[in-house]
Each structure stands twice: as C-alpha cells, then as structure tokens.
C-alpha cells in the first residue's frame, strides 16, 4: 500500500462520517423542532379566541362571532355512535385473530390482509362507499320496504357507519395487542378448571383486557373525530338551525366546519381568529384522546412486564 492512498483514505472517510452521523441527527432534531413549532403555532393563534362562550354558543355573524358548540356536539355524537357500531365488530375480529386463529390458517391470513388493506384505503373512498352502500343500497332498501323517504338521505347514522368501517383497523390492531398481553397461564388455569373456550374468553380473557378495548375505542374515536373526507357527502353540513336529535338528521362537524370556513367563507380574514380556535379545539380533542390511550397502554405494558 503506498503512503498516498493511506493518507487519502481517512480524509474521505472523515467527510463520509460527518454526513453519515450529521444527516440523521439533523433530520431527527429538525423533525422534532418542526412538530413542536407546528403545535406552538396552533396554540399561539388559537388560545386568544378560546373561551367558555366559544365552546358553548352557536356561530353568529358569518362565524366571526359566537362559538362552535353545534359542531362540537355533532362531532361528539358522531364518534359516539361510530364507536357503538365499530368497537364490537373490531373486538370480535381481534378475539378471532388472537384466540381462535391458527397462524397457518388461510382464513386468518385473509382476515389480516383485509384489515391491513382496509387501513390503507383512502378516506375519500370510504365516503363514496358510504354513499354507494349505506345510503343508496341499505338506506334505499329500508325506504322501499317502509315506504319512507328519510333513510336514503345523508344522515348521522350513515356517517357514523362509514366512519366505523374506516376506524375498524385501529380497533382491531390495538385490541389484539391487548388480548395478547393477557398471560397464557390465566387461560390455561381457566381451561383446567373445566371452563369451555368461550367461557374462558368471555369471563377471563376479555375482562382482563378491558382497558385494551377501551384504548382501541379511544384511538378510533381520536382518528374518527379528525376525518372529514368520508363525511362530506354522507351527512356533515356547514350550518344547521338546530341540533340533531335523531339518527336520520344531518349534523355539523368540526373538521368540515374548518374546511368550509377556510375555503368558502366570504370574509375569511375576519373569521380567521375564531378559525384558529376551532382548529385548536379539534386538535385538543384528538390529542387528549390519543394521550389518554397512550397512557393506558403504557400502564398495561408495565403491569404485564
């Protein structure tokens, strides 16, 4: 080896090392700072408009005054019905995957594939599905049998149903994780005492993973509350004279409210401060749910390790 190449090599290596160590560090810190700035931006602009009145009043004067209570109400009702519809199905699927399915079974793999695919379907396609299936097929079906005309229209129920399908993978994944943390000894003990498989699941496994099911529901709600695209055509409206009081009513929605206000408002500049506040409320709603779920999850993991 001649001395020249020996002298050159470390030099080149130093440059490489600089980038190889520097770029990842830079990216990671840049990302964290970016996210913190983003959060700070919304808190900074959103806080001034926050008040009790803002949370409890209806919008007035083209959304430049008043509050967003109907939108909060609509969103909360929506995600509540959504979880009533979606969580039982998601939990049952998770029970199948964790308790009944054999690793090699074709059906189990198909279910897993279905869940993963469902998680990747664009949310707007769920909106079209809501129109095509829930409104035009099921709703129309109910209408023709009953002779009514309210079921085939956009409504709270169909929006909740659409969202429950969208959030199904979230429920399944986190409930399955919770079921898997239930110690195998508990199942064995229950079976050894003569309980059947279903009794074991119903009386031992599920009660022990109740917090996990709760986490799944909360995560799904957090996700569902922020989704706008699926509910644009199946029930969300920009303004309503009164609060929805039946499943077939339409409703105001936080995310949709923000979208319409931002893009179609006649006086966007004046409405901007309150819009930031609406955005902050939506963010707080989503994050408080996510953080709660995260804390519960951490506790489960700690208890089991």
């Amino acid at each position, binding site marked *: 080896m001649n001395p020249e190449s020996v002298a050159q090599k470390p030099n080149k290596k130093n440059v490489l090392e600089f980038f190889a160590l520097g770029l990842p560090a830079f990216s990671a810190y840049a990302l964290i700072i970016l996210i913190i700035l983003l959060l700070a931006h919304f808190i900074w602009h959103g806080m001034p408009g926050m008040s009790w009145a803002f949370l409890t009043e209806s919008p007035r004067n083209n959304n430049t005054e008043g509050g967003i209570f109907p939108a909060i109400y609509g969103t909360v009702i929506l995600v509540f019905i959504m979880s009533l519809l979606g969580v039982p199905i998601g939990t049952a699927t998770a029970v199948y995957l964790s308790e*009944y399915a054999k690793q090699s079974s074709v059906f189990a793999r198909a279910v897993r594939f279905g869940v993963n695919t469902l998680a990747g379907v664009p949310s707007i396609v769920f909106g079209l599905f809501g129109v095509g299936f829930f409104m035009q097929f099921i709703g129309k079906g109910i209408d023709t049998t009953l002779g009514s005309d309210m079921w085939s229209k956009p409504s709270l129920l169909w929006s909740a149903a659409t969202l429950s399908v969208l959030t199904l993978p979230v429920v399944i994944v986190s409930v399955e994780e919770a079921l898997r943390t239930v110690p195998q000894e508990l199942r064995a003990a229950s079976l050894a005492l003569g309980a059947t498989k279903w009794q074991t699941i119903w009386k031992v496994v599920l009660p022990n993973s109740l917090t996990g099911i709760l986490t799944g529901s909360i995560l799904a709600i957090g996700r569902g509350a922020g989704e706008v695209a699926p509910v644009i055509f199946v029930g969300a409206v920009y303004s309503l004279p009164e609060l929805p009081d039946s499943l077939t009513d339409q409703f105001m929605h936080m995310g949709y409210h923000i979208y319409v206000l*931002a893009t179609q408002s006649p006086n966007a500049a004046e409405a901007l401060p309150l819009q930031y506040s609406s955005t902050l409320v939506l963010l707080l709603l989503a994050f408080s749910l996510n953080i709660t779920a995260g804390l519960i999850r951490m506790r489960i993991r700690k208890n089991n390790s």
Partner: protein
Amino acid sequence: MAQFLHKKRPKSQIIGEFFAEWGIRLTASFSIVVIFLIFIFVFREAGGLIFGTAKELKPKVEKKVEGADDLKPEIYNPETGEIAKIKEPEKKSSKKKEEKSIWENLAGDVWQPVGKEPKYGILPLLSGTIKVTLVALFLATPLAIFAAIYSAFFASRRLREWIKPTVEILAGFPSVVLGFFCLVTIVKGVNFITTFIQPGLDAFASGLGYIMPFADSFFREAFTISEFHYSSFVGGIGLGLAVIPIIFTITEDALSAVPKSYREASLALGATEWETAFKVMLPAALPGVVAAVLLGIGRAFGETMIALMATGNAALMSWNIFHPVRTLAATIGSETGEVQWGSLHYNILFFLGILLFIVSFTINAITELFVKKYLAKKFQGA
C-alpha cells in the same frame, strides 16, 4: 374418566360453544367482506359508465335513424335503474354534440365537468396527483428515513423515548388541520421564499439536466416559479407532513427489528457505528424501508383534505411544481357534493374512486405479500 368429563358437559353448552366460535369467525370475516363491498358498491355507482357505455351509445344510433325522438332514451334503460332516468335526456344531448365515446372523453387532457360540453379528461387529474405525490415524497422521505436511522441507532434511550411520541403527535394531526395550515401559513412562507430562490432552482434544474440531458427542458419547466399562490409545491409540503409519520414509524420498526447479532458482528469486525448503520443494518432492513415508502405513496396519493385546501384545485396539465393541480381525491371531494346524482359526471367521480381504491389496494398487496414475506424469510433463524 374422559367419558365422565364429556358427560358433565351439557349439550346446550356444546351448542353454545359452536355458535360462539362461528359467530366470532363470521364477524371476523367482516373486514374481508367490507373490502369486497367497497369494490362492488363504488363500482356499482360508477356502473352507468362502465356497463352503460354500449347502452349509451346505442340510443344515439337509434336517434339518427328515427330522428328527434327525445323520449326514446328515457324509456330505454335496462341497467342503470331509476336514478339514471332523471338525467338521461340531458346526457344524451351532450353526447350528441361531442360525437365521441366516453372513453375517448376520459382519455382527454381537459377536465371541465360543468358546462355545455362537459369534458372529463382525467389525464390532468392523474398527472396532478402524481406530481403532488412526488413532491411530498421528495420532501418527506429523506427527512423521515434519516430521522428513523437516528432514532434507531444513534439516539440515546431517553432521547428515543422522546422522538417516537413526538412523531406520533404529528400522525395525530387531522388532515384538515394540516390543510388549513398550508392554506393560511405555508403558502405565505412559500411565496416569500420563491421571490428569491429562482437562481437556486435554475442551478438545481441545470444540474439535473446535466445528469439527464434528454430531460433538460423538462427540468427547466418543472422548476420555474409561477405567479400562482397555491401549487403542487404548497400541497406537497402539507402531504409531506402527513406522510412523514408513516415512513418514520415503519422504517424505525424495520430498523429495530434487524437482529442485534448483525450489529455486534459488524462492530466486532472493526466497522464503526455509522458504517454498521448504513452498510449493514439499513440494507438488512431495506424491504421494510421500501414498504414504508410505498405506504407513504399510498397515503399521499389518496389524501383528500390537504390536496383540496392547498393545491389550488385547477386541473392544469403541466409539470411545473409551482403550478396548481387538482388531484383525483380532491376532485371527488369537491364535486361529489354538488353533482346531480346518477348523472354521467356522478358515475365518473365514482370511477375516479375506483382508480384510487385500486392503487391503494395494489400498494397494500405489494407490501403485504411481497415485502413483508421477504422480510420475514430473511430474519427467520436469525
């Protein structure tokens, strides 16, 4: 003894057990069923377009023979069902003027669904979606992957426990909020920056043109600042923010899943920490990284709210990243609410939905069947 145990179990319990298991199985099949339902019912609403092509052309021929018989097409309606009837006459008249088949219309390069002569060319929508997806990936992928490398290999344990939840916060941002952020804030920043970065962009474009001389003019066009406020660049930043958590999380998981023995072996052979990370661990986790990028593409391709709010929504056909675009998802999002139900336009919007669904399905199938299997096989026995 065994017989005794069997006797003790009442018949009702055995039947109950049977129903419980099959009830659970049946419910579990829901996810698969929904995939089929999505496909069938989005397809069904687009049906007037796909199955109706021949039928829609037929009355036109009959019309020529029989003269102006406007009632004919309304009666002649075997497949679309009652919704289509309302719109049928209008549809026919527009058809007659164009004298083009609907597929020719779809392959056109003008998207102008409202007007006397509606044009449904989906090429600008497709190119717009691809363009904005590319911008988003170009911005998000390096940042997310490098950050994942840092988090998986270089960061201290405590720092790592900070990075992951922080990125999860970004994942928790509803897309409408990110869209709003682009609409109000990012666009100002971009417009501010673009006033003085044209020379830099020129240099970048000629650099790319130097590497790929055949596409020189293409790159020059792609990086020319325009006077438009909202553009695929602004939208791409927003989509990038939405895509970063996906790419980061999956890449991080893939990198962490590489067996520790790989790292130990590499270090024992005298490689440094960064050489181990880039030359041993990263290649080993490559399928996972590919999966991350693919899923990122899927997300950016189908994202609605950000595209709807920040890209300008003009169906321009150009490769300039500073021109506004109208993506497939944004088109569905903004037009489905106002379209007359059952009309040709309505069918076409559902057809766009099918396109989105097929793209996302394909991407998922590739990651599920190809990439993950490869990854699993690679680390078996490790």
